[in-house]
């Protein structure tokens, strides 16, 4: 297994399948009354978060705890040494000196996990870096889609919205393409980098003509703070042209899914009705995130052969 998980580029179809299969086995644990495995006992995982996060941080924390690892949460906020001007590198060295085995990092600067991986001996897991990647989100999305359609090969997925600034989009395009799905990126031209065609995705500016043909409509969060940059005229116009509302949902096939990485702006990229409809697997995405992150920690930190056996036992 890989030492660090920085980008979906590192994972081929076999590696992704292994992670998803392992997640499936581990999910059975979370359905038990006592939801804990001893696998990572004595190991320490640090959640190093330079950006606000609810679901990703909690999901990683819970995943590590369910595997019996010790967990440290470090948020670079007004209460930490970062507020006193401590640099990223010094923070990394401090964690290293305390002997952590893995650092789960979220950072607003694209590439920060790459840099971190050059400074420490611990495994680095990218939990979202700037506008670059969010690989564990892509893995949990692949898991959630596979759960419904069994096979990812040949599926048609539309990813709608602010692809330009989205780390979720970059990781998902790579992961979906690796697994043989066809991805179309949809949104206003100001939010879709034209270079995205070289990622193996196609680009469309209109959503309606695609809806009848797709298996998954994946909505990205409209980052409201981008409003000042004049990327589109107004949230109202965005919702009218690219928001998934009831009318548009009716155009989709009955078995087609609606997904969203959260947090949602209801009434902008997704209507309240759609988000709570039967097609929406948004909450499944969240709970699958736990199993997928357990799987990653297990494979990256505890992936010795004896533990491979342990996993088989547990799956029975």
């Amino acid at each position: 297994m890989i030492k660090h998980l920085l980008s979906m580029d590192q994972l081929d179809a076999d590696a992704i399948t292994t992670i998803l299969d392992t997640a499936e086995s581990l999910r059975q644990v979370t359905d038990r009354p006592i939801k804990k495995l001893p696998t990572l006992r004595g190991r320490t995982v640090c959640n190093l978060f330079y950006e606000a996060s609810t679901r990703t941080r909690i999901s990683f924390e819970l995943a590590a705890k369910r595997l019996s690892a010790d967990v440290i949460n470090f948020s670079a906020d007004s209460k930490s040494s970062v507020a006193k001007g401590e640099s990223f590198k010094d923070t990394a060295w401090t964690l290293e000196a305390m002997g952590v085995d893995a650092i789960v990092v979220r950072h607003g600067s694209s590439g920060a996990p790459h840099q971190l991986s050059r400074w420490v001996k611990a495994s680095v897991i990218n939990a979202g870096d700037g506008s670059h990647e969010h690989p564990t989100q892509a893995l949990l999305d692949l898991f959630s889609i596979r759960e419904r359609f069994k096979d990812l090969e040949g599926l048609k997925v539309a990813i709608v919205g602010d692809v330009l600034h989205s780390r979720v989009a970059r990781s998902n395009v790579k992961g979906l393409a690796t697994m043989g799905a066809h991805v179309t990126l949809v949104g206003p031209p100001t939010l879709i980098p034209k270079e995205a065609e070289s990622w193996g995705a196609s680009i469309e500016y209109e959503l309606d003509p695609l809806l009848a043909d797709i298996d998954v409509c994946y909505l990205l969060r409209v980052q409201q703070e981008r409003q000042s940059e004049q990327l589109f005229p107004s949230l109202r116009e965005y919702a009218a042209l690219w928001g998934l509302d009831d009318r548009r949902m009716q155009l989709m096939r009955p078995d087609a899914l609606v997904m969203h990485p959260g947090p949602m702006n209801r009434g902008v990229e997704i209507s309240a009705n759609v988000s709570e409809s039967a097609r929406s697997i948004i909450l499944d995405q969240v709970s699958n995130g736990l199993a997928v992150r357990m799987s990653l920690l297990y494979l990256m930190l505890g992936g010795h052969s004896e533990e491979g056996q342990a996993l088989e036992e547990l799956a029975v």
Partner: protein
Amino acid sequence: MTRYLLAGGRVVDPASGTDTTADLLLRDGVIEAIGTGLDAKGAERIDVGGAVVCPGFVDLHTHLREPGREDEETIASASAAAATGGYTAICAMPNTDPVADSASVVEQVWALGREAGLVDVAVAGALSKGLEGRKMADIGEMARSSARVRMFTDDGRGVQDALFVRRAMEYLVAFDGIYAEHCEDASLAEGGQMHEGERSAALGLRGIPAAAEELMAARDIELAKLTGCRLHLLHISTAGTVELVRRAKADGVRVTAEATPHHFSLTDVALDDYDPNAKVNPPLRTERDRSAIVAGLADGTIDAIATDHAPHADHEKDQELLYAPPGMLGLETALGLAVTNLLAPGHLSLSGLVERLSVAPAKLLGLTDHGSLAAGSAADVTVFDQGATWTVDPAAFRSKSRNTPFAGEELRGRVTDVFFRGRRTVAEGRLVDEALV
């Protein structure tokens, strides 16, 4: 003063069309003679064994960081780095703290350069007070000061207001000053970390489009036409800008341009592992741009190779890419990169290379002591071995900073000896008088 005989070198002096195996005799700070069988009584004989003997290099674009950031570089340490890199003159950029926007600051920098005594330190003055692009700096007073400022620039940023550019250009004509531009439209470049293109989209980094440079280059060329002012475009980086300069020169506009070693050596793929040492402004561009820069240097569209030597403290460079300041060192790797990427592949001849590193920049700045090996001219001479290979080791740099993306690279072309006004400043690749720094 001592006499030196540089024996058996390949003497390259583009100003006189010389490229021949000969000896060079220096006496009392001037070049006495070029030839064979010279009367060299009492001269120290230095057998250069086929190495290239040429006029000392002149850098149009050096950030010395003094005054203000003496922890990163001083005028003395930059002079040492420059000499080691084969330079005998450098031009200090004005974006210091305080900004070189008045006679007192430019005179201070000039005087400290004289004191260091390893290279001539010419000084570029700011165009606007505090580099703010609004009020004109003391252009005339700087031109008339003992530093005799000739080049004026707000380098580090482009001047955004076209009317200000027009007025500054008109005013500069009185002093035969050069309006030098860092071509970058601030609104298009805002927040940019690298070249905008396929790599920036994939890496999730905000890009600076080629158009941000080209818009301003086109504007300045039009205003140079309007005002008759001399225009110099700093560190041009895109194929489009090369083409704009080519056309402007054909139209008779008084425009010159420089390009950096990193822009003819690297492309934006250097950012693929988010190395802050590859973050620079203007950014590393695409392969198409890089080859256009090489072609521009080859056909003379680009007059000079300039380093844009930009020292940064380790603790500032070794940050998240988003926070790391742009810029990289240049003085000590320029020749190696030029030989490796321009001379060795045959893009430039030896005399073409010396033209770009010495003759053209000396002429541009009006440094009559540099750029020529004519008998009687100042003995500013560089000797380099074009076949020697060496590995870039930042720890061995004379600069106070270490920020280079070329660490560990093997380069061809090494400076062995440098003479500044007849005094040997570098011998066998090392500074002669370590006490000087």
